[in-house]
């Protein structure tokens, strides 16, 4: 999987990690969050398959793209496209393609939970 690792912000004032990027930290109000921290690992907390695409009527997509909600170990939740058949509890890293798409790539680990639909994760 080619691409750069997703960048997040880390607030210089309180250390809170932010994604998507902000102009000020919502926690402490610092207006200078550092902008180049790496997102680091995360865990898939939900998986959604897209069957119909807006604006294309009832034409089903051919490959049913998979989207995941990823809870980063550092705190933020990130919406990403999955590059493979991920399930809840899969460990992932997040990369940004040249197109700007954020893509979740399985890191081969089961970082939290077992994929049970009732597993809860704490930020």
């Amino acid at each position: 999987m080619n691409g750069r690792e997703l960048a997040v912000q880390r607030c210089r004032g309180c250390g809170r990690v932010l994604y998507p990027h902000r102009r000020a930290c919502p926690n402490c109000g610092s207006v200078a969050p550092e902008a180049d921290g790496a997102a680091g690992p995360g865990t898939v907390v939900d998986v959604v398959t897209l069957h119909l695409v807006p604006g294309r009527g009832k034409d089903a997509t051919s490959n049913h793209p998979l989207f995941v909600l990823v809870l980063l170990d550092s705190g933020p939740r990130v919406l990403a496209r999955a590059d493979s058949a991920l399930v809840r509890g899969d460990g992932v890293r997040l990369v940004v393609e040249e197109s700007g798409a954020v893509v979740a790539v399985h890191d081969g680990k089961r970082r939290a939970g077992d994929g049970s639909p009732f597993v809860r994760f704490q930020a």
Partner: protein
Amino acid sequence: MSGGFVGILGAAQTAYQRRPDVNVTTESLLAEAVTSAIADAGLNRRDIDGLGVASFTLSPDRVIDLAWKLGLRIRWMIEDPMGLTMVQHARRAVEAGDASHVVIVGGDRMDSSRFSAMVSQYNATTRDIVVPTGAVGPNVPFSFLTAEYRRVHGVGREAFGRVVIHQRSRAATHRNGLFTEPLTMQDYLSAPDVTSELKLFDCVPLVAGANAVVVGEVGRGRDAKARILGYASLFNGDDQDGTGLSLGLDGIAEGIWEESGRGAADVDVLCLYDDYPVIVLQQLHELGYLSEDGLTSFSHSGYGTSHPVVNPSGGLLCCGQAGAGGTLHGLVDAVEQLRGRSGGGQVEGAQTALVTNYGMVLYRYGACMAGLLIGAAR
């Protein structure tokens, strides 16, 4: 203002059209709703000195362009995608004497191509980091909310199906009902999947249409169609850092009850913003109408048969969403209910209605929540 109170003086809703004629434009829809609402208020355009507009497709025109084309000479104006927010601003403007009679209108000629263009450019965050993934539009983010709701409350898809089935039964009595054929749970569950969490009937159909109300001082020959009893709102309540399931309506409701001196038990009609069934259910939770036990009962025994009646028009899910005009659909419906003019869909004895707006997805879920409590004028 000279000691009276501010109320809703008039209300109007255009016909909703799934496939509008070529001569129907956003401007023509807004103009029709404004003209009808002024007439309903017993006013003429010279009485109007304030205008507020909610529209995604009026661009490049703005509220002043619409005022010009309608021949309105105004001293107060506003633009906002949420109708209820503008109603509250108009209320305060009238109380302060900055305006006397304000029309708040919302509407769009919305179709699939305009909708696709709008959601692709909804905001910079969506454009830059969501759309490139291929998750265009709100269905993917609201699928995550739906999944979260199912986990938190331990319910299946039937819980959402009951919302749709109830609202469809109500839409059959509404003049703008779009999906009116009776729906069974089997019909709901066997409908095409939009996503792995959403069925076709969980998503609002796009329509062309508009809604408008006139806000002004009651008295001096101006009859209220409804009284404004309370309002509260919350914007960007959690910085998009949560799961999105908490809408903030519980805190908003406290503010509304405090201002109005009413409580949840006093409400006869609930016009809850219903862009997806999960948002209806979550609002019912936060308003205290559904406890955990209540949810179980609700999910398995029925919907809408008890007090208060939820979305008596069928809501956006079954009448369609006329773009930003959807944020005034519930208010116009609520005013009609309180006037006793809802025909076969009339909630008997309706005296108090709570209307909500929810939306403006910043990243993964809506960031704006507002509630308005209105009461019968009679």
